[in-house]
């Protein structure tokens, strides 16, 4: 009787642990996910006065070049703290990189990391242009919340993330 009770208790415990592991372990999606249109998602991971590191994901074709820069809002536009850095979308849909500031400028908190995809700058691989169109006409049009129309006939994608603390106020502990 006792051994039966122990066996039941052990099976119950194993089941609970397995269920917990299933629910809490993050990992890649078990099946391909779909999106209604093309997108770029970005995250400013870390900020230091001399560099901002970022990563992101996109369902743009492999090899599509994403342009990223750091700016601060100014009137209705932006004041740039960096030049564009261009990184390719990898086969798994992810990308990452690091952006240095312009000369004689240091990054600070609450700047904006801006990422965009255009068909004209930087030059995109031919197979990417075949998929999205030379002027970006297959990027989903204005139904795509990340799409902007430029110069009448061109479409680009753009998204923005907020840069975290760059260590402001942190002091070295006294030894």
């Amino acid at each position, binding site marked *: 009787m006792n051994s039966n009770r122990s066996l039941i208790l052990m099976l119950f415990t194993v089941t609970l642990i397995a269920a917990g592991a299933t629910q809490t372990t993050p990992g890649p999606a078990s099946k391909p996910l779909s999106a209604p249109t093309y997108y770029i998602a970005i995250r400013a991971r870390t900020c230091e006065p001399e560099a901002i590191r970022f990563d992101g994901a996109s369902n743009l074709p492999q090899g599509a070049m994403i342009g990223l820069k750091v700016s601060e809002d*100014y*009137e*209705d*536009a932006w004041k740039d703290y960096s030049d564009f850095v261009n990184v390719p979308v990898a086969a798994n849909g992810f990308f990452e990189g690091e952006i240095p500031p312009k000369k004689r400028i240091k990054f600070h908190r609450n700047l904006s990391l801006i990422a965009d995809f255009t068909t004209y700058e930087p030059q995109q691989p031919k197979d990417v242009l075949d998929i999205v169109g030379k002027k970006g006409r297959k990027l989903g049009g204005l139904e795509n919340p990340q799409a902007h129309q*430029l110069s*009448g006939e061109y479409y680009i994608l*753009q998204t923005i993330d907020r840069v975290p603390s760059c260590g402001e106020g942190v002091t070295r502990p006294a030894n």
Partner: protein
Amino acid sequence: MGLFGFPGDPGGDPREKFKDCLNKYGDDRAKKNLTYDSFMAAGQAAATAQIATSELLALWDNENSLKPDMMIGRKGPAGEIGAMQITPPAVGDLSRFGQLPTGWKTNLLANLTAGALYYADMSDKYNIPATQAAAAYNGSPNPNRYTGAQAQRYQTAFNQRQVMMMNLVNCMR
């Protein structure tokens, strides 16, 4: 008369009236992107350049679908900047004529004004017929450019959008 040529209507809320007019006359793009404040800014810029508000709104619609967030920090393929996609040659012309508004790169109203002034210059400075002024805005005042297929598509789209914008502006009077 109210601001920028729109008659005042002291008895009603102009924003509510704008919503009604937009619902009645706007297409999907205008309903999605055009705000009352953008509409008023276009009216102010058009008045400065002495062109019709409907012309400026049709140009803006052609350039980037009337999006008020268009000072997006990415230049167009030929170096165009802002809501009115001001090109480097247009900047040169506006500077030469002493017309380039301060803050045209960063301020929406100034960018709209720069576009309105450049459009007016097509007729005033280059003697281009009004029926081709939008094509010239897009293609340049050079006849070899503004008579091309792309510029003419631009003019056709402008003509269609201007009709809608005239209805909208008249509704707001």
